[in-house]
């Protein structure tokens, strides 16, 4: 079927694309699906912010608002962030480690289809009587059981989460097995680029933590649809929270690490220096990922049911490994000649904004501080700086960096910079007021607040900020569509890249490489350059 001529791959038809087991196609499909859900989840967020701009109810009812934040959170985690992290890993890891294809390609494809099913299930709730899921993205039992939240919408939500979790496990298993078994012969683990390392720790966490979510949700579904009362009794709700957060905390790192890796690649490439402190970075990623498996209890500080001290210790210890990441990223920029492309700007935005989330994370890691700010807007501000300031900024750094490799065309730099310079003030304006509001006692998941609290002004600011973010994302959408059609042709290696994916064509051929350059370090293309300088 495929021809031997390289540069112009045949235009793939939809059915062929939807059944393709090429890791690049599965990665693209998963990524595109995730981005569509990102847009939908964002739309829900804008609706929520519009409702919250002022005290009182103006736009939606209490009932509808509960659906909005439930589906917003669920979309962003289950249908956007986790899938896009897997999409980046599926597309890029085989290229970076010099593999011609992944192990278990059918499972990866199956993962994409299950994700599609999850999305349809979750959103079809809006069309049903009683509406979509409305027990929060965490769906604590007993609120989420058939008495607490009856209705088909909530049933479908539960099934959707099971499907999304299975999808993540399948795709992560493919990436993990590929890294372990399909590296190019000279690609030892310690020669893997930083992004591949970050993807590795991410998929390790997926296969360890997501099964707990599948278990929690399956039991919940049985509880909802049969007469069995799985989570009843004094311990039931606690067991549910343990299972959920055993997934629910690792997932925030699952969706963080790959984009930390993307940022590392963007900084190294744009600085025209190989990444700084590689052994420290690798060690810190492994320890970071292990620690973040053991911090789930900090979501349960106010339950009086767990050993708060242990989880306070593990959570605070994360600042050490996270600090190494900052040192290495900044070390890479030190004495460099930095090209300020959009990918670099988003990488810098990632470092600057994630920092706010990271530092406030140290606050909420301390139980006595968490007793006050838990379930308030302080926490909402905190995790939006990790997930939006971190994950989303890192994702855009990655998209601007790898778009030419994937499509063969460059994204427009001027629109990219406009996108960035709108998104940064938008992010500050939206989420900074939340710290003040939360500290003042504004609780989460409320559609309404009393006028005499004095919260109107800050909420209005936050809402304006969310519109600015929406505008910046529209700029990106325009850039994306324009560049796909008529962007400048990129060539194989437009950025003077460091890792193997830049040694093949853009987009890469089905078997990825016609010829692999020698691999002697984590930046094989830099090795070649240095050889040329020496000779």
């Amino acid at each position, binding site marked *: 079927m495929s021809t031997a001529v390289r540069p112009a791959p045949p235009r793939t038809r939809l059915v062929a694309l939807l059944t393709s087991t090429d890791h690049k196609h599965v990665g693209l499909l998963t990524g595109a699906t995730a981005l569509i859900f990102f847009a939908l989840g964002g739309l829900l967020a804008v609706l929520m912010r519009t409702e919250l701009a002022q005290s009182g109810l103006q736009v939606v009812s209490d009932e509808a608002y509960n659906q909005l934040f439930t589906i917003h959170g669920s979309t962003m985690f289950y249908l956007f962030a986790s899938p896009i992290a897997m999409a980046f890993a599926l597309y890029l890891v085989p290229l970076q480690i010099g593999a011609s294809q992944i192990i278990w390609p059918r499972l990866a494809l199956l993962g994409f289809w299950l994700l599609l099913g999850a999305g349809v299930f979750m959103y079809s709730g809006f069309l049903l009587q009683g509406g979509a899921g409305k027990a929060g993205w965490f769906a604590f039992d007993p609120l989420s059981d058939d008495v607490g939240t009856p209705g088909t919408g909530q049933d479908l939500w539960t099934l959707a989460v099971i499907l999304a979790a299975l999808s993540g496990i399948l795709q992560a298993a493919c990436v993990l097995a590929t890294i372990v078994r399909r590296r190019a012969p000279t690609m030892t683990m310690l020669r893997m680029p930083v992004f591949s390392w970050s993807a590795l720790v991410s998929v390790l966490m997926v296969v360890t933590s997501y099964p707990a979510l599948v278990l929690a949700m399956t039991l919940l579904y049985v509880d909802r649809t049969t007469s069995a009362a799985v989570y009843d009794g004094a311990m039931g709700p606690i067991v549910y929270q343990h299972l959920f957060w055993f997934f629910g905390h690792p997932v925030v790192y699952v969706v963080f690490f790959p984009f930390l890796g993307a940022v590392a690649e963007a900084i190294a490439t744009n600085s025209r220096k190989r*990444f700084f402190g590689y052994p420290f970075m690798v060690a810190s990623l492994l320890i970071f990922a292990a620690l973040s498996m053991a911090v789930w209890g900090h979501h349960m500080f106010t339950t009086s049911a767990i050993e708060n001290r242990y989880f306070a210790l593990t959570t605070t210890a994360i600042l*050490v490994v996270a600090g190494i990441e900052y040192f290495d990223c*900044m070390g890479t920029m030190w004495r*460099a000649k930095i090209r300020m492309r959009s990918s670099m700007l988003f990488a810098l935005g990632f470092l600057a904004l994630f920092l706010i989330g990271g530092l406030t994370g140290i*606050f909420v890691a*301390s139980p006595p*501080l968490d007793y006050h700010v838990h379930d308030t807007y302080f926490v909402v501000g905190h995790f939006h700086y990790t997930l939006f300031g971190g994950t989303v900024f890192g994702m855009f750094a990655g998209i601007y960096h790898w778009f030419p490799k994937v499509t063969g065309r460059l994204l427009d730099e001027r629109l990219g910079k406009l996108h960035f310079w709108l998104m940064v003030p938008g992010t500050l304006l939206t989420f900074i007021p939340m710290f003040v509001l939360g500290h003042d006692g504004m609780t989460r*998941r409320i559609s309404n607040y*009393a006028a005499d609290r004095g919260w109107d002004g800050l909420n209005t600011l936050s809402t304006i900020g969310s519109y600015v973010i929406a505008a910046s994302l529209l700029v990106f959408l325009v850039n994306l569509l324009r560049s796909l059609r008529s962007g400048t042709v990129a060539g194989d290696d437009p950025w003077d890249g460091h890792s193997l994916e830049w040694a093949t064509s853009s987009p890469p051929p089905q078997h990825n490489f016609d010829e692999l350059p020698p691999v002697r370090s984590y930046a094989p293309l830099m090795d070649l350059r240095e050889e040329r300088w020496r000779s």
Partner: protein
Amino acid sequence: MSLAVDTARQYEDLFDLYWPIAVGVMAVIWLGLLVLAVRYRRREGDETWPEQTHERPRAEAAYVALLAIIAAVLVFFTFTTMGSLTADLPAESASGAGQPDADPSETPAAAITVDVVAARWNWRFRYRGLGIEQVGGGRSIPTLVVPVGDVRFSATSLDVIHSFFIPYLRFKRDAFPERRTNFTLGFRKPGFHEAEGRCAEFCGLRHAYMNFHVWVLERDAFRRWVRARQGRAPQELTPALDRDGRRR
């Protein structure tokens, strides 16, 4: 007066340790990023490659040690604070709940115990041994009336998970069905806090409105209130406010 438990004070003290460190770190890193981005920016037309320095293991190890020290300091003070918070008692299941566990660090002043019962979407406060019950009505929210000093609480829920939150005391605890969560709170000054208490755990449709007033009385005034309150209808003798805080 001295309180055995002063959650607000403990919170503020710990917060005052954390925030200068956080602000300091943030200033250093933001400034560092700015300096790096400006100082090592590629000049127009410069196509040369920079010097390839890519490790400084000693500096990095020293930096890691510094971070570890910061983490250790924060954990130490967090643990110290937790040690003085008598709220950190293990929960017991409701079936076995007679009196809450005796807490050695509690002063005898903590004479009264309030059983907090949460149910969608209102609160009920039962004063143990006093025969008093404060309940919210259809349009009104209840008032938690307490004397100045330490008060014991034992919270539970009749349906889903709720969370008993008094923002000005910087404290909340979850209330579970079939479980009791015990904690002690110290009330420093008398005063009326309108709709200050709220439910912090999402509990469904009217979660946003599940609030309560907090009314702190001097000890004598509280005794008078108890005497007058005993045998009366629940809604009387508390400031009558509707849900929006207006006096009826």
